[in-house]
Each structure stands twice: as C-alpha cells, then as structure tokens.
C-alpha cells in the first residue's frame, strides 16, 4: 500500500525518476497478487501448517510406505492366524491382532490408503460436479436455475445417510463405486454455494462491461466467473474430504461400505462392539486414526478460509 502511494509522486529530475523506478520495482514485489498473499497468510498460520504436516505424514505412510513397511515387518494385512486372535500388542504385532489374527498396524496402514483415497477422490467428484452444476444454474438463471434448484431441494430433503445406506446395500459397492456414489450424492451444498457466488459476480459492473463489448460466454466463464468461484470451492475442499471420510467410516462400520477383507478404518470397527472384553485395542486405534485425519482436515479448512477469504483475513 505504501509503495503504491509513493510511486505516484514521480519527480522530474533524473534522481527522482531513478527513485521512482526503484519504487516501482518494490511495488511489484510488495503488493502481491491474491494467490500470493493467500499463500503468505497460510505460511504464517502455524496451526494449519502443523495440521498439514500431520496429514502429509499420514498420507505418505499409508499410501507410499505401507507396502515396504509391512514387508520389512513381515506382516500381511490380510493374512489370518486364528491361534493368536485378539492378542494384544507384542513384538511381532506392535498394535496387536484382530479377531482372525490379522496384524492391526498393517491393516490400519492399508485401511488408511483406502479411506484417504475415497476421501480425496469423492471430494474431487463433489467439487467438479458442484462447480459445474452451480455455475450452470447461476449463469443461465430462470428455467435452468429453477429445475436445478428443484432437484437440489428434492435431493436435500432425503436424509443423505439413508440414501447412501440403501445404495450401498443394494449395489454392494467396491471402494471405487462407493467413491462414485458418495460423489454423486453429495455435491448439492457446494453447487448451492457456487450458484450464489456466480449470481453475485454476474451482477458486477465489469461483467456487464465485458458483456457489452461482446465477450463470448465461454471466455466470460473462464476469465471472469471461475477465478471468483474457485477460491470458494477450495475453501470448502478440506472440509468436504473430512466429511466424506466420516461418512465412509460410518457406512463401513455398519457393514455396508467397503467389504472385507479390504480394510478401511471404518470396517475395522464393524464388529468392534462384540470385542469390548476380548480386544479393546481393536476399538481404539481405527477411530483414533479417523479422528486425527478429519481433525487435521477441518483445521486446514479453517486455515484455508482465513487465508483465501480476504474479508476474514486477520479477523479471527
């Protein structure tokens, strides 16, 4: 801000001009663009950075290192050994084994791979669909908007978990189809937000101006609407991933999500209720992993909102 004001006071002498040039260079450096300043704000937010680090470590360990690690420890996530069922932590099995003698640590890591994968990919579908439908509704208005909003209201009037329950029961989904189902059923909130944003931006003068000079619709969306809408979607992305992970875990807990022997954090808790006395360690760990992951995602979501929403910056 300071640089911008002083840059206006351009003098006539050579020295003044040199100084003005100096100032201009500073200006490009010190008045960062939207994304740059958002990034700066994020970097100063220690809590968000910490949450991101935890999540990153979790993701790397589960997705990249789960294979080599379990090889090194010589445990197989799906190898059963009934003779040691329900055994607590030991040298061979640091977190104990489950009801059929499978190593819990290995299953947690492999389960994390599936749970995180479902979370990220379903969120990607949700974001894409929400962006597309919301932009369409906001841009075209009238009949299109009415039809889309009616559909959204209808879908929103059915408790989401009921729909997901029946769909996953009737179609017995694999991890992949479950991801698609979750994605197809939960884009409505995002598209509502996007629609509102598009309608707001659409009324702005510069859009009217662009319209007046005959900018084609496609270019208008790409150049003027999307840059205003994408940050909003990004703000919600972390939250959506967290929400999907929670939903998947609840479904799998009921025995309707991803089917064993494929492990997810949710289905590891599926029979947990019957093991309260035999193996309490089976109840604690998967839930702890879910909680830590979702907590990190929600904290990141808050951080993203603070960083990307200029009106929120510094407000807290």
């Amino acid at each position: 801000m300071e640089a911008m004001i002083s840059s206006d006071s351009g003098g006539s002498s050579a020295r003044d001009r040199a100084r003005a040039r100096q100032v201009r260079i500073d200006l490009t450096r010190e008045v960062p663009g939207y994304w740059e300043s958002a990034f700066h704000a994020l970097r100063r937010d220690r809590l968000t950075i910490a949450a991101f680090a935890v999540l990153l470590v979790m993701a790397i360990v589960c997705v990249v290192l789960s294979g080599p690690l379990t090889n090194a420890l010589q445990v197989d996530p799906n190898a059963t050994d009934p003779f040691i069922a329900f055994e607590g932590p030991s040298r061979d099995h640091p977190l104990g084994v489950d009801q059929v003698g499978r190593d819990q640590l290995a299953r947690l890591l492999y389960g994390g791979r599936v749970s995180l994968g479902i979370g990220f990919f379903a969120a990607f579908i949700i974001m894409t669909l929400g962006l597309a439908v919301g932009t369409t509704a906001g841009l075209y208005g009238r009949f299109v908007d009415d039809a889309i909003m009616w559909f959204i209201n209808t879908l929103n009037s059915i408790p989401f978990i009921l729909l997901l329950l029946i769909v996953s029961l009737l179609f017995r989904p694999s991890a992949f189809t479950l991801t698609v189902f979750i994605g197809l059923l939960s884009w409505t909130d995002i598209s509502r937000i996007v629609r509102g944003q598009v309608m707001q931006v659409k009324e702005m003068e510069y859009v009217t101006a662009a319209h007046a000079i005959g900018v084609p619709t496609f270019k208008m969306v790409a150049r003027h609407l999307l840059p205003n809408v994408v940050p909003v979607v990004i703000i919600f992305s972390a939250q959506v991933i967290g929400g999907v992970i929670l939903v998947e875990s609840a479904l799998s807990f009921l025995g309707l999500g991803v089917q064993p022997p494929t492990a997810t954090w949710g289905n590891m808790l599926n029979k947990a209720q019957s093991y309260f006395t035999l193996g309490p360690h089976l109840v604690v760990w998967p839930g702890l992993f879910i909680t830590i992951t979702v907590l990190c995602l929600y904290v990141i979501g808050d951080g993203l909102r603070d960083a990307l929403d200029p009106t929120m910056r510094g407000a807290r």
Partner: protein
Amino acid sequence: MTRYVIRRLLQAIPTFLGITVLTFVIVHSAPGDPILQQTWNPRISGATREEMRSRLGMDQPLVVQYVVWLVGNDWQNNPDVLPRRGLLRGDFGSSLIEKRPVGEMIGERLGATLLLTATATVIGYSLGIPIGVYAAVTQGGLFDNVSRVLSVLFNAIPGFWLSLIVILVFAVKFREWGLPAIPSGGMYTLSAGGERGFDLCDRLIHLLPPALILATAPIATVSRLMRTQVLEVIRQDYIRSARARGLYERTIYFRHAMRNALIPVATILGPTLTGLVGGAVITETVWSWPGLGRLFVNANFQRDYPVILAGFVIGAVGVILGNLLSDMMYAFIDPRVRLE
C-alpha cells in the same frame, strides 16, 4: 402466517413427489429381488414364485407399481392381487418379512426416535447457545479457546466411534472395576419378571448417553455460529447506545445482542434436524435403541422394500417439516421478516 404455511406446504408437494419417484426408482433399480431372496429354498417352484410376484403386483411395469404404491389399487377389486390403499391414503404396504402393515411397525418405533432426536435437539440448543454467547463475551480467553477447540474436535470424531468408546469405558470397564456403570444399550432394563413398569431414572440413564452423543454435533455447530453472530452483533451501533445508557453488560448480551444473534441460529434448525435424522440411524444401531433408524437399517439388510420406502418417505417428510419450522421460527424471532 397461515397463508404462508399453506403456500409452503403446497410448494412441498412437487418436492415430495420428486422424492417418492427418486427413492422408488433407486430401490427398484437394484439388482436382485426380494422374492428371490425369500424363496431361496429349492423346493419352492418357479410357479409359486411367479404367483407371489403377481399377488404383490411385482410383475407389473415399474410405472404401474409406482402408481399403485402411491394411490393404491383397492378399487380394482382384483381377487388375485393384494389390495392396497396407497401411500397417499396412509398405507405404507405390508412388510415382506414380518407380514404386517408397515404403518404399524413404524408406529411402534416412532416414539423412541422422536424422544431421542428431540432430546438431542433440546440439549444441543440449550447448551450450544449459552456456550457460544459466553465464548463471545470472553473472546480470546481460556473458555473461548477451549470451546472452539472442542467444537472442531467433536465435529471430527465419528459419532459411532465416540459411542463405542463411551460404551467401552463407562459401561464395560466401569462394570469390571465395580464402579457405577451406564447401560450399554436399549431403552430400559429388561427384567426377568416381564414388564417392570415405568421407572424414570432407568429411562433417563438409558436415554442420556446416546442423546448426549447425538447432541455433540448440534452443540458444536450452534455454539460456533452463536459466537460469530454475537461478535458481529455487538459491534453495532444500538449496542453502543445501550452501553452508553449504562445498561448492565449482562442485559446487553443476553437481551439485546442475543435476540439478533439468534436469527441465523434459528435458520440452521432445519439442517440440524436433517443431520440428526442421519445421526440417529447410526446412534440407534450402536446403542440398540428400538427406533426407526434401526428398523430402517435392518430392513435394508433384509431387502424389505416397503419398509425401506416408508423410511425414506418419513425421513423426507421430517426434513420438509423441519425446514418449514425453522423458517417459521425465523419469522417469529425477526419481526422484520414478512412471510408472504
């Protein structure tokens, strides 16, 4: 107000029809069929199966089945087909498994679910609002920070896992250690001598643990929203003039600020109820609560189509009514809102 309610109810009709179409199509587009599942016995001949199908009207095209489900077929007086009055006349059909009217089964369980969700809503709002206001009053203080951390944490914990941990610690372990333990599920203690009569303490100790866990989500949401709203409202001029007039801080916060801050909190009642309906399905399953949620989950496993469809319809009607209620509360709290 009456006109508004009537108009909203009329507007809900297309939504309601949409829901019935959507759920009917989803349920019936699934692979497999309930008759096949019931008659896996190899001694049952194909002809019997066909007869069962036609008696239940399942050999008809999907559109016909939908219309029959919606408005019934009893005026046809066809002796080969089971007469039905249809959804719109309050007939949910008969359970394929229990062979009795779905309406009856729902009637038995509706009370339990309403009790659980109503308790959770009341707890959620009556704890969430004061927590939010107090956090805003002591902004940046210890209470504020702790409550904010807890609200994020409780949003992140899967409800079913929290239930499992509570049962593990307070029901199973406490009993092992000889401490006063909570029951691990159900609605009341079953005794060997049949019905023991109504025991309020016993009912409460069964109701409160699941209700509290179900309430964690609304407590977190309501307190967070309340905090932001109060912080926004107290910056406004009329609060400053209230201060200038020398009112007590307590009066300012709880009478002047809260009334305006409550407006958005009222509007999330609808979504809160939707969330509770979903949460109740899971919570009821974990705590063996004899409510609609468990009925629905079990019906899903047994492919009891009429019960599943009834579950959808009731859930959707609940959501529509909840949204209407929250809009009416909106108008009640904020006199500036004209419901026309």
